């Protein structure tokens, strides 16, 4: 096949690399910045030379375990997730380090230094140190793609699961990338039973642990994974720069601009764990000062333990946030005694994100806040985190936490006597991901809470991946639909109602009934399913009436629709002190109409 150059996002490049390398089982749970990797595999699946199973799994632990067993049969597999997804998959991930794999298995974990779209900025590379799993840190989309086949080969050579860790700036960067023909590996599934390994009891684990340690020592010396040196011209003796990941790329551009490109010894670390001990020795012997640049935690720095190291441990480099080219410029200038860059202008915050105009979550949150002004509102991970803007979200922690947090709030208040109304909001995808065990627990612990399942029929935040109750799997494949209602009932919930939040009076009536129920003698968990499709879905928009919404002269400028309802299609004309509808952004849902205390917002059918 003729080689072709295509402009690919890092995630697409990785997806393409997986298909080219003969990966046959790919499983993921969506999460920014990792989502487009599996999506790229879906989009490009017809290129695959052999059968390819692709799934959006219910959560990351499941994705990992599906990919793991596929590898036991000798095939190449991948599990894809964001950094906090690895916490969910931590249990099988940790044990896999000891038991190993057969067919090549990669875990691709996308980190989010900053963070831009995550609940923390944990470093998967440090996680890998604790799990004793080798990890690759690419510096560009093209390099991330090139590492995929190499990682599969090494995974098979050492029978180890390996991690590829791109960061947001790799995942969501585009670059011209070379495409290659997909490999045909011609492997049939062949699981060789070996209970001493695949079902290893404690008696067998010391041996497996020894093998793991021996493998780590060997892989650390793999020639293709050694730190790459771009030698300097001797003008900065005994001084080295060490960088990994996208930070290496920032550094290269900066050195270029400053005319220092070939003056200082520069090492790129491709595999930050495990580091070859010879590399540490070389740095200790040949260099007095070493600047170490990496995201997000000082993993290389910790392993090198160089007495002349300058980095995050001594506080020279900020320990938090993304290492932007501006920060690196300042750090490099200080390290080399160059003129300091111009002081940066004070950062301005841009426009904050909001729920979309017409988002059903906005209507639900507004009603929840109206009905229970003194309520406690635990929420969760998804678009609906933005219920924060309406004051209807008080806690956001991690996938599925809101139901158990709601139960915890209840137990703590209830033991003192009176308890506030606790309204938990959880999205449909999050409910399937980690909400069900929490719901069962809340029921058996007799928590009196209201759980509102915000069912918009999709995984909205990450761009609309399928959810189990819609009967559609990855690549639009039809499958069995697992409805939410029977699951809720089977979890022991006796109060279950479903309502469209666009119907404000009905929705608020259900909320009040739910509150009465949780406070009744036989009360327990009440579940209200707030059901209305995601407005990002063109089909949903097409199916609902689009009114022309305008504001009449009797607007009193109370700002309720702009601030309490917080629709981005509404703003204030501060001179006239009236609210305005931005017709470019308004989708004509009319959910703002009942919010106006003087009925100044009106809707009419479009002609």
């Amino acid at each position, binding site marked *: 096949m003729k080689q072709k150059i295509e402009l690919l996002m890092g995630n697409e490049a990785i997806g393409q690399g997986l298909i080219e390398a003969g990966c046959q089982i790919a499983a993921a749970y969506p999460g920014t910045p990792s989502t487009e990797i599996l999506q790229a595999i879906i989009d490009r699946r017809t290129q695959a030379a052999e059968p390819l199973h692709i799934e959006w799994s219910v959560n990351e632990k499941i994705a990992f375990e599906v990919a793991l067993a596929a590898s036991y049969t000798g095939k190449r597999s991948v599990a894809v997730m964001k950094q906090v997804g690895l916490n969910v998959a931590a249990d099988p991930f940790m044990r896999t380090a000891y038991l190993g794999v057969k067919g090549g298995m990669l875990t691709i974990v996308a980190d989010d230094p900053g963070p831009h779209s995550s609940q923390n900025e944990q470093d998967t590379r440090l996680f890998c140190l604790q799990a004793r799993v080798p990890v690759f840190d690419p510096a560009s989309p093209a390099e991330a793609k090139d590492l995929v086949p190499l990682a599969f080969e090494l995974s098979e050579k050492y029978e180890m699961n390996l991690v590829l860790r791109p960061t947001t700036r790799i995942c969501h960067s585009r670059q011209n990338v070379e495409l290659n023909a997909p490999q045909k590996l011609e492997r049939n599934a062949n699981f060789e039973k070996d209970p001493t390994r695949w079902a290893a009891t404690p008696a067998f684990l010391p041996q497996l642990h020894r093998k793991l340690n021996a493998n780590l020592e060997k892989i650390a010396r793999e020639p293709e994974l050694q730190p790459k040196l771009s030698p300097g011209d001797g003008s900065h003796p005994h001084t080295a720069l060490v960088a990994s990941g996208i930070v290496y790329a920032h550094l290269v551009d900066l050195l270029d601009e400053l005319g220092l490109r070939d003056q200082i010894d520069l090492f790129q670390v491709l595999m930050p764990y495990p580091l070859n001990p010879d590399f540490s020795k070389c740095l200790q012997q040949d260099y007095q000062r070493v600047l170490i640049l990496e995201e997000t935690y000082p993993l290389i720095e910790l392993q090198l333990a160089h007495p002349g190291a300058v980095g995050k441990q001594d506080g020279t480099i900020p320990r938090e946030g993304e290492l932007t080219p501006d920060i690196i*410029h300042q750090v490099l200038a200080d390290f080399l005694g160059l003129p300091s860059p111009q002081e940066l202008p004070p950062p301005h915050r841009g426009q904050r994100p909001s729920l979309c105009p017409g988002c059903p979550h906005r209507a639900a949150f507004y009603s929840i806040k109206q009905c229970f002004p003194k309520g406690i509102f635990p929420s969760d991970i998804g678009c609906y985190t933005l219920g924060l803007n309406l004051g209807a979200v008080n806690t956001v922690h991690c996938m599925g936490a809101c139901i158990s947090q709601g139960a915890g709030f209840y137990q703590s208040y209830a033991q003192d006597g009176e308890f506030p109304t606790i309204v938990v909001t959880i999205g449909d995808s999050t409910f399937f991901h980690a909400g069900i065990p929490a719901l069962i627990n809340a029921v058996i612990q007799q928590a009196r809470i209201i759980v509102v399942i915000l069912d918009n029929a999709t995984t909205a935040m990450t761009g609309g991946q399928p959810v189990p109750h819609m009967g559609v799997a990855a690549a639009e494949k039809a499958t069995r639909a697992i409805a939410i209602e029977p699951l809720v009932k089977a979890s022991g919930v006796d109060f279950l109602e479903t309502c469209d939040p666009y119907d404000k009076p009905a929705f608020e009536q259900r909320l009040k009934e739910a509150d009465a129920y949780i406070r009744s003698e036989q009360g327990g968990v009440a579940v209200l399913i707030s059901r209305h499709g995601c407005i990002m879905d063109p089909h949903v928009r097409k199916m609902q009436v689009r009114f022309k919404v305008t504001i009449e002269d009797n607007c009193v400028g109370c700002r309720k629709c702009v601030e309490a309802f917080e629709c981005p299609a509404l703003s204030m004309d501060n001179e006239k002190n009236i609210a305005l509808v931005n017709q470019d952004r308004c989708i004509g849902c009319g959910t703002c109409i009942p919010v106006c205390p003087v009925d100044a917002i009106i809707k009419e059918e479009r002609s």
Partner: protein
Amino acid sequence: MKQQIIVSGIGGQGVLFLTRVIAQAAVNRGIAVLTSETHGMAQRGGTVLSTIKVGDFSSPLIRTGQADAGLLLWEENLPVHKPLLKENGPLLVNTAASGPGERIDASGIARNLGNAVLANLVLLGLAIRQESLFCTAEECETAIKQLAPPKFVDQNLKAFHEGLNGN
């Protein structure tokens, strides 16, 4: 040839599409290109920024004061993203109001074409008219034809020409 470009806006304005069109023009000419984009939570109407680096670069990000040109689809982003621009770097702004930079009411023009989201290509047209970018009008047209869904190609080209030809 080296050029560093920023494209600034809010989620939903088509910043990503505009970024891809400019980057594709570089790919078609056989020049190396790197972009970075904003995905995730910010796409829900929050401030988003794309960077495009054309030529021999390694990193997709742009340091403060290093961008050669800036396309702003959302005027309120000026204080946030203008500092990325070189002192004399051309700045193209979508707005009906007056102020710094070359200005065009791209949203108004796009609205007249039937879809406010086409403002992105109206602004691109202006940038080409001002010779602010590395690429030519023909190169942009080719990239638009490659990237737009077939049934929207004509509308997209029309928006681009509105900005390109002025009125």
